[in-house]
């Protein structure tokens, strides 16, 4: 769509010359979906329509018990300490954020009364502050009122390093102030186009000041309410056994009308994904199974005549192969994969291009991911408006061979290509995980056909993804030529995600390999593009900048996307769960119900 035309249309909606519906219809006419149109409007400074709800029940309660199966059960219930999504999911049963994300990536109000926009005075035109109005009359489960003081407290609590809250990352960058009892203002130190980070979504839920105020800083671990949450959510806390069980009952004073539907809730932990799928889909012992990462043919078999089905949610998670731009086999100042080196093989762009042609994404989809995967050429696969349409992928051993032939890589006596005495031998590592090992095998086979020798390596996940400096096998040290995994995109905005590959963030010995740019790819144009996007308040220009950033990675073959991965859940046939690729599974729980 033409940039200018779109902008004038947004202007018309702002001035009231065109209504929202007409705008969305016109957007649809040029092939953009309604939610996408809504998002463009929202970030263009026009209030976002709240995500449409599919909720049908007309009264609170009466739905019986909801039985959830999390094969990794929550181990703690303070959202500020949550190390993984399982903990956020457990805490989210009781605690709530100001707003969350619906399946289309639209904002949905929870504790906030309205979505901030330029029109309602919530968003500053310079992008340096956002003002949230809170829903009046919301009560904590113990009856105390929920006010702006609670929101401000959460900021003070988490930004204190002694508390060792994991939300510190989001909250230390901002200032939160109380305007009145039901209004808070968040101040940013620079223009922030994606303002919906703090206090939005399951990782950023709000805990009560009156129960935590005596447990700030180094005393944070002693709070009795760490293990027995008192929140504002649809369910009241009953019981918690770490890793095993979380139980709650309906909150009769819940602030949303007719909600929640279920009278009680139970989240059971432990076991593995396959048996969780079986307990939901085949035997119907449970209503919902979380994160069912199981080969698709297994799921299809379970679904035959079963009591449940699989449910998918589209987000932006990409399973990719990263190529190392530095030399993992040469040590410089006691450091392998040092930024001072160049990869002996990948420094030839032809080799990188050839490898990309040897990844058979369609076969990987067919043989492994099935309904849970989509083939893609992009590193950035969502939200929709940030997805590049300029890229394409192909699988062709012939073309790969030709590119290598043309670049002077000739097969040696052993059938492996070589040039200037360097053989095309690659080490390809990933974490131990069924689908990943199968993908490795498919890739190795294709590479062999093209005269590239690939050695496979797999590392236990808890080591591969560790921040342990002493360990040589972490993904950030990247002592291999290629590595495969995914980095979850946890909010419907790519800014955090794409900033990781700035050349200033290269992982080195100096920063204890905590730099996030692990392929050690250095590109000035990319840096400039990301920096421009960081402060760009115009949504259309901003989207274009991220598309450009993605295309730069594509041109340089930094990442070879293997699959755009969908979230997979299992649900009873009569359950109507609302699951978003942009949120945690329990984020939209207030909208779940059962069809009679």
């Amino acid at each position, binding site marked *: 769509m033409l940039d200018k035309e779109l902008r004038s249309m947004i202007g018309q909606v702002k001035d009231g010359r065109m209504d929202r519906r007409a705008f969305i219809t016109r957007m649809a006419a040029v092939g953009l979906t309604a939610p996408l149109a809504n998002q463009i409007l929202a970030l263009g400074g026009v209030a976002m329509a709240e995500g449409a709800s599919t909720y049908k029940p007309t009264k609170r309660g009466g739905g019986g018990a909801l039985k959830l199966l999390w094969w990794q059960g929550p181990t703690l219930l303070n959202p500020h300490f949550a190390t993984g999504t399982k903990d956020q999911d457990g805490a989210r049963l009781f605690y709530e954020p100001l707003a969350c994300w619906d399946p289309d990536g639209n904002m949905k109000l929870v504790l906030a009364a309205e979505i901030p926009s330029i029109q309602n005075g919530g968003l500053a035109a310079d992008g340096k502050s956002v003002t949230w109005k809170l829903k009046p009359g919301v009560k904590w489960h113990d009856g105390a009122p929920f006010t702006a003081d609670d929101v401000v407290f959460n900021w003070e609590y988490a930004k204190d390093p002694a508390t060792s809250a994991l939300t510190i990352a989001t909250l230390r960058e901002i200032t939160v102030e109380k305007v009145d009892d039901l209004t808070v203002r968040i101040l940013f130190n620079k223009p922030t186009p994606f303002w919906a980070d703090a206090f939005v979504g399951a990782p950023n839920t709000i805990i009560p000041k009156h129960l935590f105020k005596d447990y700030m800083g180094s005393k944070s*671990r002693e709070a009795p309410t760490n293990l027995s949450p008192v929140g504002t959510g649809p369910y009241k806390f009953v019981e918690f056994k770490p890793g095993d069980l979380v139980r709650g009952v309906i909150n009769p004073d819940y602030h949303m009308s007719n909600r929640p539907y279920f009278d009680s809730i139970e989240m059971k932990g432990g076991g593995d994904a396959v048996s969780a799928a079986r307990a939901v889909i085949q*035997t119907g012992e449970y209503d919902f199974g979380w994160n069912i990462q199981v080969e698709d043919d297994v799921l299809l078999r379970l679904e035959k005549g079963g009591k449940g089905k699989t449910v998918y949610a589209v987000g932006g998670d990409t399973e990719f192969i990263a190529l190392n731009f530095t030399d993992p086999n040469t040590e410089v100042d006691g450091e392998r994969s040092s930024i001072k080196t160049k990869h002996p093989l990948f420094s030839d762009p032809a080799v990188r291009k050839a490898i990309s042609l040897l990844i058979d994404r369609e076969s990987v989809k067919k043989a492994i991911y099935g309904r849970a995967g989509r083939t893609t050429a992009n590193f950035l696969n969502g939200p929709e408006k940030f997805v590049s349409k300029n890229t394409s992928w192909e699988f062709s051993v012939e073309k790969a061979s030709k590119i290598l032939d043309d670049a002077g890589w000739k097969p040696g006596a052993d059938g492996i290509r070589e040039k200037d005495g360097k053989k095309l031998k690659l080490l390809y590592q990933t974490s131990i995980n069924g689908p990943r090992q199968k993908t490795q095998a498919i890739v190795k086979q294709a590479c062999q056909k093209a005269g590239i020798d690939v050695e496979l390596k797999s590392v236990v996940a808890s080591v591969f993804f560790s921040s*342990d400096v002493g360990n040589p096998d972490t993904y950030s040290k990247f002592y291999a030529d290629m590595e495969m995994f995914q980095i979850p995109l946890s909010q419907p905005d790519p800014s955090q995600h794409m900033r990781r590959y700035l050349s200033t963030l290269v992982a080195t010995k100096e920063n204890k390999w905590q730099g996030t740019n692990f392929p050690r790819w250095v590109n000035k144009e990319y840096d400039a593009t990301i920096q421009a996007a960081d402060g760009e308040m115009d949504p259309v220009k901003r989207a274009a900048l991220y598309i450009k950033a993605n295309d730069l990675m594509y041109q340089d073959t930094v990442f070879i996307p293997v699959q755009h991965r969908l979230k997979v859940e299992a649900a009873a046939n009569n359950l109507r769960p609302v699951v978003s690729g942009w949120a945690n599974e329990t984020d939209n729980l207030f909208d779940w119900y059962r069809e009679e």
Partner: protein
Amino acid sequence: MSQYVLRRLLIAVPSLLGISLVLFVVLALAPGDPFSELATNPNVPPEVALALRAKFGLDDPIYLRYLHWLNAMLHGDWGFSFVSRMNVDTLILQRLPATLYVIGSAQILALLVAIPVGVYAATKPYSLFDQIANTLAFVGFSLPTFFTGILFILIFSVTLDWLPFVYTTDIKGTGIHWVLEMIRQAIMPVAVLGLFQAASMTRFVRSAMLDVIRLDYVTTARAKGLGQAKVIVKHVMRNAMIPVVTLIALQMPAVFGGAIVTEQIFRIPGIGSLLISSILSNDTPVVMAVTFVFACLVVLFNLIADVLYGWLDPRISLR
């Protein structure tokens, strides 16, 4: 006798210290850290993960961490779990009932099957009963519990739909209904584990009985005209039980330690599944505490076995 017990106790102290040191060093050298999930979360800057490691002392030298741990342990502080940020002893106590119930029942089942079958088989060696019992025992301990567990689930849960295969600690209902449900959900894990242990124990009881049954004093007893039952129970069993007691005593720690595989398959929130999930998430304080408790129990039950020997055969304590 009391001197013998005291001597045994004094040996136990250095062995426990040694065990704890070895466990600690092995765990400290093991790769990975409890905050690995943060590494791929784009919202958490890496400094935060590093700061957490430093805060929890993961970067201190090993000897310092060991001394801290030992000191705390001597003061009755078991440390706290990095992952759930609660005290390790609370965590273990929460898991203990399920383990004791399921694994304990399995042990009792194993004993109830193994002793009568083993004894009866030994009295009639190479009879049809003996051969059937032997065959079943061989089949029983050749099939691993993860296989029989899944087989049971497929038969009794999926196909027949008789029993639940997810163990829940919060069964709704009270009184007799609650008791029945508790029994119903434990049938499969108890059977899987109990029969597995019964199989090897049967073989053991049988061979221990056979060793004794051929001794001269048994023939003498028979020659005196004592009835078969009296000879077996009073004369043979008491002596044959010495090695069996060892076996049972050494298996007692397993009752507390849980059965890792079975707990995992049936989602029993016991010590075994706590251990495995803590190992997977590198939650060292929990792994350390569970394995150390396990070591203590092994030492304790060894001691009890020694004392029992002394009682069953007084000659042992004199040496």
